[in-house]
């Protein structure tokens, strides 16, 4: 995203309207875990420190529950700001972000859809965990869900082969056009 495109996006999210009342932070279910509060993230974007905001771990803690946006008295789309920052950092991941579980997961998720058109959960879990291992992260975490898998299969909740779309090629083309960032 160019600097201009970022500025336009910031405008659309009404970042300039924010007067720092903190209602976003007050209602955020995960504010307690964030290194920067949602209102501080919006503030950083407002003053042009988008880079700093992108580096905050907070944007990966955000669960996209929309509470902040819903209650904002100034109709700032705070959840949208989080999305924008994640998009920006996905374009230019910093080393520490590249290691972040959430971003690894989301990339794995999209790659998965791109291949099949629909989510193939078992493959997703596998790919995600492989990515985590390659990055040499938090290994015990890896086994938590592995323990769940047999119980899920027992309940018919995990299929070894996921469903797939007949016209898979179109999905690839949609991804290409969108990620290339230019018109079709």
């Amino acid at each position, binding site marked *: 995203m160019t600097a201009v495109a970022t500025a336009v996006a910031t405008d659309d999210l009404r970042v300039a309207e924010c007067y720092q009342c903190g209602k976003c932070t007050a209602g955020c279910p995960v504010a307690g875990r964030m290194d920067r509060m949602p209102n501080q993230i919006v503030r950083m974007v407002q003053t042009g420190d988008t880079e700093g905001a992108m580096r905050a771990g907070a944007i990966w803690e955000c669960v996209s529950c929309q509470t902040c946006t819903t209650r904002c008295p100034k109709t700032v789309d705070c959840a949208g700001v989080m999305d924008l920052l994640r998009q920006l950092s*996905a374009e230019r991941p910093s080393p520490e972000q590249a290691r972040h579980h959430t971003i690894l997961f989301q990339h794995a998720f999209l790659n998965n859809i791109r291949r099949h*058109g629909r*989510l193939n959960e078992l493959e997703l879990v596998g790919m995600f965990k492989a990515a985590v291992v390659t990055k040499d992260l938090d290994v015990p975490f890896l086994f938590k869900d592995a323990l769940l898998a047999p119980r899920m299969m027992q309940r018919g909740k995990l299929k070894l082969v996921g469903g797939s779309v007949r016209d898979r090629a179109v999905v690839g083309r949609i991804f290409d056009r969108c990620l290339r960032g230019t018109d079709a």
Partner: protein
Amino acid sequence: MDIGYYPGCALHGTSNDYEQSARACLEALGVGLKEVNDWICCGATAAHSINHRLSVALPARNLALAERDGFGEVLAPCPMCSMELLKASDLMKSDGKLRQEMGRIVELDFNGRTEVLNLIQAFQKVGLDSIKAAVKRPLEGLKAACYYGCLLTRPPETLRFDDCERPSSMEAVVAALGGSAVEWNYKTECCGAGMTLANTDIVLELSHKILTNAAAHGANCVVVACPMCHVNLDMKQADIEKRYGVRHGMTIYYLSDLVGRALGLSDEALGIDRHFVYGG
């Protein structure tokens, strides 16, 4: 009556019990679900975290597919999917340029002719009075904590469904089934949603709070209309209990489970027996 059906990945995967339940109970109410041909994933949180155009394009493709199939209404039982569909639909309706661009990207045109429904709206379309009249086994003794989570009502200008601060539409369905609903405080708090795999810690913390509050207000079960809420509250419940050293033992129902049961369907027919917390 047949309506369009957009299952989304969850209902074809981990949450296929939800699909089973929704299909069974709607069928019993005379509503057939016809799957949208060749539907693809809506992109969920991942798409709008990574690429804005993608987050519009994926739902746009599905809306266009539903239109191609001639569906006037499409049920998307997963609120994440229905939110993404509605959001993309609103964006394209208000921006002709975007609509054209998306038409080129997804190789199909969007005309905004299909209405997107969540599960509760599907029941509302059937009519609560008709449901009430069809009840064979009233849910006496049921004290449900109706749990809406985030995406059924938020963002309100996209969803245009119920009151986002004090929703009551699920309670109305429960009441029609002869059950009762408790007043509690975590109706609209987030469970961690799609963070199940990526950030399990958040999910455990948030879901634990939700289960605790429901029990504190006298609920004997939690009712959801979202696959992610169900995964986090049901599948993850054992992890939550281990992590916090408590015993919740809270049954988590899909709203369709309750409707189905009241209509006289068996737990097996509805897939309730496949829940992690079952019969406890």
